[in-house]
């Protein structure tokens, strides 16, 4: 079965190139390519993708907002963010919103295809800079909110620490005597906890501000 991919990218040339690249790749098909995320729910209903390639900077609904909508309405869809910017804040925000991973646009075409495959299989890329932010966020969480306290396992902390040092998944796998897939699974779990964590924080914030 082919992986169905939907593209959200405001640069027309890149959108078309990506479409062609995906259509040409083995085991992949592009079921939709859109210039913005303003009608994302309908677009997704039409395209019914397994993986969404999402640009962060788009006119109208931003990529990050789009991720939030997608994760709510179509939780089964995996999202791969793509951006030219290496600003950690935006990438981190996207991950907290529910993106499975991200890649930079300077990444070569073959790697892009690989990344789509990985994402589909539940892989989760994480770089050192994002790993630092994840650690910070878990460290800052106040123990007072115990009922919603989400903590990382020892193994996850170990992997994060190695990621902060700049180790690749491969290096981590060999250091920890596990497979690369297991490293990926751990990172995915970290992302999920991050999502729960940031979500619970959002809920707490909403309660505090008497919005709920």
């Amino acid at each position, binding site marked *: 079965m082919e992986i169905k991919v939907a593209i959200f990218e405001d*640069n027309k*040339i*890149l959108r*078309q190139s990506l479409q062609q690249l995906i259509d040409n790749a083995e085991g992949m098909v592009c079921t939709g390519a859109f210039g913005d995320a303003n009608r994302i729910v309908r677009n997704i209903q039409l395209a019914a993708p397994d993986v969404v390639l999402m640009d962060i900077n788009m006119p109208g609904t931003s990529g990050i907002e789009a991720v939030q909508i997608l994760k709510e309405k179509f939780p089964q869809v995996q999202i791969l963010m793509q951006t030219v*910017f290496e600003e950690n804040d935006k990438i981190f925000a996207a991950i907290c919103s529910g993106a499975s991973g991200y890649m930079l*646009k*300077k990444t070569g075409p073959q790697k892009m295809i690989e990344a789509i495959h990985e994402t589909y299989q539940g892989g989760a890329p994480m770089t*050192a800079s994002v790993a630092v932010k994840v650690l910070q966020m878990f460290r800052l969480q106040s123990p007072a909110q115990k009922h919603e306290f989400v903590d990382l396992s020892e193994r996850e902390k170990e992997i994060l620490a190695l990621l902060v040092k*700049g180790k690749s998944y*491969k290096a981590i796998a060999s250091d920890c005597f596990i497979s690369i897939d297991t490293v990926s699974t751990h990172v995915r779990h970290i992302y999920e906890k991050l999502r729960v964590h940031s979500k619970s924080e959002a809920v707490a914030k909403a309660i505090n501000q008497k919005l709920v």
Partner: protein
Amino acid sequence: MNPVFVKIYCCFFFLQGSLYAQSQTRWIDSVKKAIVTQSADTNKVNTIISLSDVYRFTDPDSSLIYARHALTLSEKLNYNTGIFWSMVAISGSLYILGDYNNELEYTFKVVELSKKINTPYILGYSKGLLSDCYYNLGEYDTSMYYWRQVVNIAERSLPDELFSVYGNSSHIFEAMHEYDSAMHYVKKSIQCMNAIPWLNKDDYASKWARSSIFENLAEAFAGKGLYDSALFYYRKSLASSAEIHMDLNEMDDYNGLAALYKEKKNLDSAIWYAKKAINKKIAKAYPVSMLKAAGILATSYEFKKKPDSSLKYFHVTISVKDSLFNRQKTMAFQHLLFAEHEKQNEAAATTLQLQRRYRTYLLIVLLLVVLGAAGIIIKNRRIKQMQQMRNSIADDLHDDIGSTLSSISIMSELAKIKSPEAASLLIAISDSTSMIQENMSDIVWAVNPNNDRFENVLQRMNLFAAEILDAKNMDLAFSSDASLSACRFTMKQRKNWYLFFKEAINNAAKYSDAEKVFVDICKKDNQVEMRITDNGKGFNTASVFNGNGMNTFKKRVKELNARFDISSANGEGTTVHLCFKIT
């Protein structure tokens, strides 16, 4: 009435400045000149008080002004002794001006202050002054009460003053018609005087003492009706007074003699002495005595049936009385006070004006500061806005170019599949594209001010090295000092250092065939040291050092103002060492 205190006071003054009798005007002039130049200290206060004393009898108004001036100055200086003598001088001037009520008021202040200063002399002096005041107001019992306090103080600690204390009591007793007591104290006074060596010489003080005491004695005899003895002592007093030009005493002596002759019905002699008294120059400044003389003259002429002359001196009496007590005098005094007040107001107004001017200056300065601050804030905000605009333009451009470059590299990848014969060309295109992408990314990163912390630089280095070496199956050991993370870099340093690092890592990845690459970054003092070591095949440094590959290194090193060296040999790995200063 006899001005006891004035005499005590004169004594004080004359003993201080015996020049008075000889060259009064010259002294006044020099003192006046001195006051102008003198700094406002205690000496100046004393000088002004002396000046007030000099004017006391000739120009009591000026005397009062000087005394008040001295008081203000002493108060400013917190100079209690000065305040004391200034108030004594004010009270003396008020006495001469016939303002007995205000005189009493100031005397109370003097007494109050004397308790603070608390020396026997000052205490005794103030009590004596009070006694004099009540004497002048006709309250002889109260006067006597205070005089007894003075006696107590003097007997305990001021033996040298006893003679004058005893002597002055005679006036009070005479006023109370207790002539025996008066006589008793005058005799005691004479005993005391004889016991003091410095009062038995042929000098001013001794003559003054004799003049006063003989007068007191004469008055006591007169009171007891012993006219011959009284005449005798009046004459003795007169002789001493005349010798030292003690006009006040002279006037009193003449008056005493005139009164005696009047009593004895020797009207011609009475008139002669009274005229002597009234014609004294100082008479105008000593109205009480003048009044007495005029009174004697008026009654004497009346007895001689000379109504014209009698009337004339009656008029003098009335006018002197008027000048002493009438409203005009009070008004003149009030006017003086008013003028004084006006002067103070003027000074206050000047101060106020000055204050206002300074306030205006302050306001102007404040306004300028506020305007300046506002200007800077507005300018900063504008710079920020400009920067934001530039950033957003740069972001858009970056996004657009980055996306387009990405599509070029995708398209050349697709083209490779479709036309394999153009593969080499297409590979070149995609390589160039990715190089441009990489460079652009580096520049954007280096320019972003958020990245000027060491942490960010280290992160990016680590990430880059991990990615590049991972692709070549090389291990990376990246270590850095924790103390480094707080350091800051300039944009230039950040860019050059990172590009140097990239070059070194790229070289290691491309040429070394190493299994492991070590990156070690540490801080020594204010220098950053970086060592990139691999365990690869190494190379002959001499053959490569001048080659093209070194140019990138050299350029970065020059811009960093750094030192660097490469040590390597065939088969022994390579170490690149860089060292540069940070501020």
